[in-house]
């Protein structure tokens, strides 16, 4: 039986996977448009652009990770889902929020940096690593949010 608490926990998981996934989709989408532009000028740069394009994709995976941890915690996948109290459900929901919000926004911003990075690669292909490092800088905050969300979800309920 699903209680309000369990519903809130699932809502948290859905927000983490959904919002971070939306962010990644936007970020990777922007990257893809720029990559197509650069590749049309010089097909050899496809590889470099592809790496840059994929960078904002990790937030979506982190969202999936948190959602999955929530499912394991509330035993959703094993068939006997836990009946959480309202407070427990809210706790898990709160735990999911850092990644949901930071994942959404950081992926979009990382996408923007990746697009600029492609402009850099188009002009100076040898500076690819610098473009990558610049984009990876943004991801640090998604990782910190992942850490907090993970710890909160993991230790929120016994």
């Amino acid at each position, binding site marked *: 039986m699903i209680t309000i608490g369990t519903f809130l926990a699932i809502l948290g998981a859905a927000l983490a996977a959904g919002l971070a996934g939306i962010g990644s989709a936007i970020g990777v989408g922007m990257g893809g448009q720029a990559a197509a532009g650069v590749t049309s000028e010089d097909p050899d740069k496809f590889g470099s652009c592809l790496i840059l394009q994929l960078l904002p994709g*990790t937030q979506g995976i*982190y969202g999936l990770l948190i959602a999955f941890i929530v499912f394991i915690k509330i035993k959703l996948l094993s068939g006997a889902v836990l009946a959480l109290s309202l407070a427990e459900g809210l706790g898990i929901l709160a735990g999911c929020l850092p990644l949901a919000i930071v994942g959404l926004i950081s992926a979009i911003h990382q996408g923007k940096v990746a697009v600029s990075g492609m402009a850099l690669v188009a002009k100076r292909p040898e500076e690819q690593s610098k473009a*990558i*490092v610049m984009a*990876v800088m943004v991801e640090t905050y998604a*990782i910190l949010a*992942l*850490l907090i969300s*993970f710890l909160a979800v993991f230790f929120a309920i016994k």
Partner: protein
Amino acid sequence: MALLPFKKLTLIAHASDEEKILTLLSRTGSAEIIKTSEIEHCAAGDANDREEGILSESAELAFCLDFWRAERTRLNKIRKKQTEERKITNYEPKKVSLLDKIRAKKPDVSFDEFDRIGADRSEVRAAYKRLREISQEESELKGEESRNLSLIEQLSYYTCADIPFDRLKGDRRVSVSVGLVPADLYKGSDFADLPVLYLQELGERQRVVTLFVAYPTEERGLCEERLSAIGFSKATFTFPMTATEKIAELRARNEEIFRTSVSLAEEAVAIEDKMRPQVEILFDYCRVEQEKCQAIDKTFRSGTSFVLTAWVPAHLAESTETALGNSGATYYSIYEDPKEGEAYPTFTKNNPVVAPYESITNMYSAPSPREIDPNPFVAFFYFVLFGLMVSDAAYGLILALFGFGLYAIRKPRKGEGQLLLVIGMGGVSTLIWGIMFGGYFGETFHPVLFSPMNDPMSMLILSIGMGVFQILFGMGIAFVAKCKNKKPLEAIFGEGSWFVLFIALGLFVMSGMLSGMSGLKLPSLILLGMGGAGVLIGGALGRKGLKGKLAGAFSNVYGVTGFMSDILSYCRLFGLGLATGVVGMVVNKIAFILMDLIPVVGYLLFVAVLVVGHVFNIAINTLGAYVHNSRLQYVEFFSRFYTGGGHIFKPMGSNLKYIYLSDKGGKEL
């Protein structure tokens, strides 16, 4: 395992031997020509005219290569579209097996062949000339084709008039013609007041009406005025054919044009099959010639002699000198050590395990020549952290097989394919960490240390611990480097006081937590004070004035936050390590659910989901490990001790695009 020393070669020789010496140096691969410092009563070398000639030849060769690619693409498109009934071309693209594709590399060319092709360019010139003609002819044909197409488009309005155009002339008394008029204007018009004008509507197409018009020649002015008022335009064709016949003729002509241009393209491709290697060799020959010109620009010369300066790696100096001696040129050479503070190129030499990681370091910045070579340290940490991030034994085995396997099949030349080795070694590291964590395709099986999924806190502590270790290690390197450079004060008050501070902090925390160690509280506090004071003094060192010293001291204390954020940055090890396991687990779960849900087909789906899912997981995590590992080296590790900014030794004659120049039979320099 280090950065190799260089000698500065100053060479004075007779101008008549210049070409000989430059050619020799472009082949020994041991000399990077630099600008010779100004000499009185001498002029700087100037090879601009010669370089211009070479550049225009290069452009011709580049035209050939581009043209061939375009023609091949065009033929390939036609070949794919053609049917059995309408066979246009027999062109078949060369079939290259996957194995050959992996093995593909620049062909070996001996010096003799290089010189032979450089000396006799008649064949390549002839090929270029013919290709130019083909290109010209093709564009003319293309022009004719599009003119024909637009004529066909115009004529298609007249297919309703089955009368040859040359018969539409009329005579002294009657004028006849056909023409077009916009349907809207024509339909609304009324010519009842002009009975002499005869109009017949022949047909209508796309809101344009084709009209046959006849009127007495003497009424011409009036009739034409009325007709042009409704936008009538007379056909000006005069050929002795109907529109339908003419269209058929034009279509036939276009087909002929198409076939001619295809056969021209086939000819171009046939020339490519025969000439491509020569063109590529000549292209690279031009590049070497261009490098020679740039070398000449850097010399200083009098009327009969010239002075050339170059950096030569010390271990190649002797062989270079021997080669110069054997060349028979008249010259005088000096080899000097670099002066204090003089920048020279970077030449790293590392053992085969460390060497692949040079590519990682060089992507950031090559070491400057007087720095400590960071590559051995980068190699160690990159190796360890890579596995920690991917952290699945099965994935590690696959990556190792992939990296080393591809390298073995490809057999790249020395210094190439380093990324494959980095991936292969990363695979080994992943295998080891995977066994430690008990991760196999996302499932947990008897971990040696702990399973990150079940014990995330341990994983977090391990990640942070790795960060603390690497950062302290980096500071250790800086400490040693400063001592070596005779700046012990900076070392002690810089890195040294931070070390004291960290140790004191550790002791203080321990004394608070462990009851038996409470006696350490006071000593640790004293140490803490000493470390703090050291950090303050370190910041003040080298600053001028009281204000500057104070500012320096406090900005150094602010560095604490830098340490904190750098160490927290290693959380990415935790995040990425866990992500691999979780995504792998998701893939397995989906596969099993599908197998249970759908009978028979479920088994196929089970296998498909597993294969695709795990390949995706390996790919995305390897990319993540590669990228984030690089970042940890560049941002967190290098900021402690490494500046870089060197430029990699690039000897004259190494700037080749298509070939690999070597003299296997001759002496290896």
